[in-house]
């Protein structure tokens, strides 16, 4: 029973002890719980870390392998291109050598051909010589022509002078001025005078002095004749008495220019007739003989040969045409002047 009492006394405290025990357990529970959580989380973390590490390693290994593969590929490519470049350089070098030779040859032969240039320059000098000679000849020819013309002009002038001064010719009695008796031989002028025919006494037409104004024009070779036929009546003439018209009117009418109508201005015959006439005129002009043209030589077989006048004359040779002509008979002239 003592135990019971003790138990009973403890009983009152049991509820509190029970409560406190539970409560302390509850109070610890949080801490314990937290501790448990920590431990578990750490452990889980370890596991996960181990797993990640493992994954990492695997990934690295894959990447390693992949990268190696890529680089090897790249390296192979690089080698190929380097090789290619080397080859190309070599080819370029060789091509440059060939082109160098070829260009040198081509330029020397075709573009800047030294020998052709030399020949060309020689040809040019030759050509220049020829041209110079020809031009020289041309110039000389011109000079000669000019001199000849001058000489001829002088001759003509001399002859004209001689003709004008024919009266200076010496006669039997009176020696002319060019034929002085003290000279051994007569002056050439004397000889010229002997040969020249006297200039005839020509009426000099009174040249109208007013035509000189227009002589300055370059094409004016003769004085232009103004359409006035007669000189104008002198100023100051007394107005004539009688039923005469005013002088100005008369002049105006007199000098009215001709204005022919078309009919007058055109010729009478039409072009057709003119052409016909032209043809007829041609025929008359061109016709040499009236003999008909006979086509074959057999037509001419029986023709008798007609002697010419020269041969058919009985008396002798015809002197006309040989000894003399009708126009000129110098032996019949009085004086031997040309």
């Amino acid at each position, binding site marked *: 029973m003592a135990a019971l009492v003790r138990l009973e006394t403890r009983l009152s405290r049991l509820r509190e002890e029970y409560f406190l025990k539970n409560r302390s357990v509850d109070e610890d529970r949080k801490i314990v719980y937290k501790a448990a959580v920590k431990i578990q989380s750490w452990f889980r973390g370890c596991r996960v870390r181990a797993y990640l590490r493992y994954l990492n390693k695997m990934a690295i290994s894959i990447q390693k392998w992949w990268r190696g593969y890529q680089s090897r590929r790249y390296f192979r490519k690089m080698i190929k291109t380097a090789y290619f470049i080397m080859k190309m350089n070599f080819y370029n070098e060789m091509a440059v050598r060939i082109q160098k030779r070829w260009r040198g040859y081509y330029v020397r032969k075709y573009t800047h051909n030294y020998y052709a*240039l030399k020949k*060309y*320059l020689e040809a*040019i*000098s030759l*050509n*220049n*010589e*020829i*041209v*110079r000679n020809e*031009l*020289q000849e*041309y*110039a000389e020819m*011109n*000079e000669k022509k*000019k001199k000849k013309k001058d000489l001829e002009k002088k001759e003509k002038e001399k002859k004209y002078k001689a003709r004008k001064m024919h009266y200076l010719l010496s006669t039997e009695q009176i020696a002319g001025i060019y034929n002085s008796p003290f000279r051994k031989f007569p002056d050439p002028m004397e000889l010229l005078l002997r040969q020249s025919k006297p200039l005839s006494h020509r009426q000099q037409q009174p040249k109208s*002095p*007013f035509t*000189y*104004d*227009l002589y*300055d*024009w*370059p*094409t*004016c070779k003769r004085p*232009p004749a*103004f*359409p*006035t036929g007669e*000189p*104008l009546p*002198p*100023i*100051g003439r*007394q*107005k004539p008495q009688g039923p005469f018209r005013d*002088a*100005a009117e008369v*002049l*105006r009418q007199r*000098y009215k*220019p001709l204005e022919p109508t078309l009919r007058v201005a055109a010729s009478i015959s039409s072009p057709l007739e003119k052409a016909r006439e032209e043809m007829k005129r041609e025929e008359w002009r061109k016709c040499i003989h009236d003999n008909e043209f006979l086509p074959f030589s057999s037509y001419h077989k029986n023709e008798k040969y007609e002697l010419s006048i020269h041969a058919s004359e009985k008396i002798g040779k015809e002197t006309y045409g040989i000894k003399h002509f009708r126009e000129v008979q110098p032996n019949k002239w009085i004086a031997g002047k040309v």
Partner: protein
Amino acid sequence: MAVRADLSPARLKISFLQTYLCSETERSARRGHSVGTPREDTPRGHPAAAVRCGGTRRLLSAGAVIGAAAPRYRRARAVGGRQLRGDRRGTPPAVPPPRAPALRSPTNTFTVHRAGEKSRVPAPSGRFSRGIKGEGVISLLRPLLLDVVPTIQQTAALALGRLAYFNDDLAEAVVKEDILPQLVCSLSEQNRFYKKAAAFVLRAVGKHSPQLAQAIVECGALEALVICLEDFDPGVKEGAAWALGYIARHNSELSQAVVDAGAVPLLVLCIQEPEIALKRIAASTLSDISKHSPELAQTVVDAGAIAYLAQMILNPDAKLKCQVLSALSQIAKHSVDLAELVVEAEIFPVVLTCMKDSDEYVKKNGATLIREIAKHSPELSQFIVNAGGVAAVIDCIGSCKGTVRLPGIMMLGYVAAHSENLSMAVIVSKGIPPLCTCLLEEHEDHIKAAAAWALGQIGRHTPEHARAVAETNVLGTLLSMYMDIRSSEDLQLKAKRALKNILQKCTYLPALEPLLHDAPPNIMKHIVGQFSKVLPHDSKARRLFVTSGGLKKVQEIKAEPGSLLQEYINTINNCYPEEVVRYYSPGYSEMLLERVENYQPVL
């Protein structure tokens, strides 16, 4: 000698004119001494004067002749002032003796007109025509143009033309007085003498200035002139063509107006006419038209002018050849195509015969034509060289003097400028000696400048060319021209450029040596540069350089360190051993003497 009071209006007009003109001659014949006789004070309204002189026609011709006096005076003045003194050949009483009063002698008009026709009349045209203008002779002449009698009209027109020809104030007066429309109207109606006189007036007015020519164009004269070009009489055609030529000469608008009036085909027809003078004038007109612009030249070419012009080169008349060559050169100068067209007309080698003509201007114009063709392209120059043109031009240059040479010189320059082969062709044709003589002999600066330029063009291509130029010792002349203060700017510039061009390629040392002594620094640079290029490779040249004193001169040159000149000098100095360089450096003798002085002899 009684006064006839009843004079018809025409006679009156004529008499006024006559008295006026006679008194005017008298006045002028006394050389402007204002001696006023009572007669002279009242020139007008003096019918009595008319009496003393007979013949209307003579009076009018007196009027025309007074106008003629002016040109003869001018000509005489050009000949050289003898005409004012007593030295007149065959002058009859040209100057009425001062003591005789003006109008009393019946032979007065005779003397006046004789004066006009025969002599170099001492009529001072300037004072004279001013005197005339002052009194308004144009307005006096104007009504005479409308006169009934055709002779009077023609002579009045002639007088107007002569007056307007020599004095531009009078030409302006002619325009102002509205004479031109009248002339133009009557151009189409009247006979050929009037047409000639009217064309002469138009030419006289149109020659002075573009404004007057414009005035002529505005009054519609061009159509009338073009109609005159179709006339039968060659004199009329000549007058019309001449007038058109003077109008077209001034500027391209006027030329265009002439072309628009349809003149060009008619001018080409005129060229084919047999009269030489007409051909001449037509060729000169075509030349004036085509000189302004390529389009105008093309118009002339389209009318087929080139073939006829090319044929006429063979004509023996010198003036015609001048004009024809000038026309062809004006056509060819504008563009390559036109030049090729001219060449295709087969003018070579005929043109080369013109270079040997006795007339100088034919030579000049021929050289101008060849120059205008050669300057466009290397192919044309090549063609000319192949035809022997260069030789002909070179001979021409050698035989002429003065400005006649200039186109030939320029032609050589143009040919040589195109390429080195052509330049070598010029050298081979012996082109350089005439150019050198030209440079030395000529007095005009522009010709010398052209010669210098041509030499530069020849020598600038390769060392061989430069050597050919330098061998003639012309470099010294060029240098002296450059340095001469009296030479013009243009000459100095061209000489300098030529010198530089030649020096940059010249390796002919004997020619370079003399230049070392006188050259200014900018030229010296090139000379020394050339030495520095040649000396390192040629030992003989080095020796010659030393013995001729060149090394000494080079040492004396002061150059800024670092400049190109200094580099060249260093290069040269490096060609020689040290002692030699030191020996020739300036002040070496003094240095040696100093050393002698400072030397302590070892006893």
